[in-house]
């Protein structure tokens, strides 16, 4: 088993590990994720029905409502949030939800931005981990 190591820009620091859930299409957490179950509920989203809970959520950027920060925070409270969020483009809304979660519950998924080529290299289902310094390791 080989291990690849990538370094990204940390928006909100933290540590988390889990299997990669790779969304090619952006997702609005508000109206798109049920914080009670962690499932994707946006019927127009191709991965509707899958769960973000405990996954290293890889998506290009967040979409839509600024209340998405509330939904991520509620997911942290209920234990249904992703283990980490790995973006291709800066998204202030998810970073805000994570920053508030750290203040309130002293835990949150790390939020990282990777260079596009690195972001492309994260395969669906691979075991990935993010450490507090912003390094991402993939077992593959």
């Amino acid at each position, binding site marked *: 088993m080989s291990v690849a190591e990538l370094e990204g820009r*940390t*928006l*909100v*620091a933290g540590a988390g590990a889990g299997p990669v859930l790779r969304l090619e299409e952006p997702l609005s957490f*508000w*109206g798109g994720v049920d*914080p009670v179950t962690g499932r994707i509920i946006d019927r127009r989203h191709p991965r509707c029905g899958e769960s973000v809970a405990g996954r290293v959520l890889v998506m290009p950027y967040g979409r*839509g*409502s*600024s*209340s*998405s*920060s*509330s*939904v991520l*925070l*509620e997911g*942290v*409270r209920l234990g249904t949030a992703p283990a980490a969020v790995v973006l291709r483009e*800066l998204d*202030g*809304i998810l*970073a*805000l*939800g994570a*920053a*508030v*979660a*750290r*203040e*309130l519950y*002293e835990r949150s998924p790390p939020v990282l931005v990777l260079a596009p080529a690195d972001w492309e290299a994260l395969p669906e289902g691979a075991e990935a981990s993010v450490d507090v310094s912003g390094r991402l390791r993939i077992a593959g």
Partner: protein
Amino acid sequence: MPAATTPETVDLTDRDRAMLAGDFGQAAAVAMRIIATMAGVYGAKRLLDIEGAHIDGCLYHGDSGVDFAELLVAGGARVSVPTTLNVGGLDLVHPEEFAGTAERRAKALRLMECYEEMGCRTIWTCAPYQTTPRPAFGQQVAWAESNAIVFANSVLGARTHRYGDFIDICAAITGRAPAVGLHLEENRRGQVVFDLRSLPRALRSAAWLLPAIGYLVGERCGNRIPVLLGLEEADEDGLKALGAAAASSGAVALFHAVGITPEAPTLEAALGGEEAAEWIAVGVSDLRAGLRSLSTAPGASEVGIGGSEDDGLPIDVVALGSPHFSPREFAELLPLVERHPPAGRVEFVVCTNRLSLGELERTGNLERLRAHGVRVVVDTCVVVAPILRTPAGGVLMTNSGKFAHYAPGNVGFDVVFGSLAECVRSAHRGRLWRDPALWP
């Protein structure tokens, strides 16, 4: 207390640092940590002073929102700039309007109380720009609520970035915001031109169409800044409706309407002297497409085709007032309702704020509306709180682009978009009525 990262790249003042260190109290320290973290996220080099805030976080989405507000209240939070509140989850004036569980009511109420305890003004409206002293041209503010943001930036020429839950109250407590985005002159120039000049004049000055134009603009320009060229005339209620629709279908936080909005006396000024990144000629077929995307109910899209008395889609609910209805909009509604009162089985609800309600009461017009079965709801609205009594699954008609966008997902109704007169006459018939005179 967990230490959020305070990026060294942000140039904080001595006062900012004192706030971080807790010299202004625990809550101010939390708020400043979040502002500094977000400044780092956005790549801001510094923070700037704001002179006012409008808060969206007072609307209940789940217990974590209450936990956050309670943390701030317990830490002695007080807002440091004039701050107004968006809608909450309850109509405090008419508590009987709430149709949810007692537990949800208690939590929504507690959340509203927390923000009041922090010193915010309890105007409870998504149209704060129609009730209170409004921000002046060029003034830096931190506003949340997508339609209020777009109105403040576009119509008032005030400056706010696109803020949302949590960072809004942090800015109000600290009086500071990251110096990024639409706060800065260089990021406010228009990028995409929507050229309406080939449309018939009657359509370019039709108030009822402005939500459809806004919806189309939001769909096509995403988070870029649109410039509308050829809009014939639009009053503030019209610009409110246009902006709210654009901020629903897209992430529009600022638009320029040439000859109408303050930063766009000319096309050149709107574009900041640069070339447009994209030029979109809007034709009648585009407007029809915009109207089609506003309605989801099958058989709803035949705008301009009148139905006869015994056919047409059954209408269960008419909901008006997103953003909140203004006194001028009520003045337009009342004679229509008196001429064509709603049928008993159609639920007819108008959402507004207390200022408009007060005026309706003084003039006796509230009683006249109620006599015809029109319910007037304040402090909240039908797509964010359990207000409607009709079970989900029916058809809701509205003249609001924002209600049309959010009602299917949030409250489970199919939607028909129409003019105000079409809404009233459809409620009267209990079936969809289209006005053939709307299209030239």
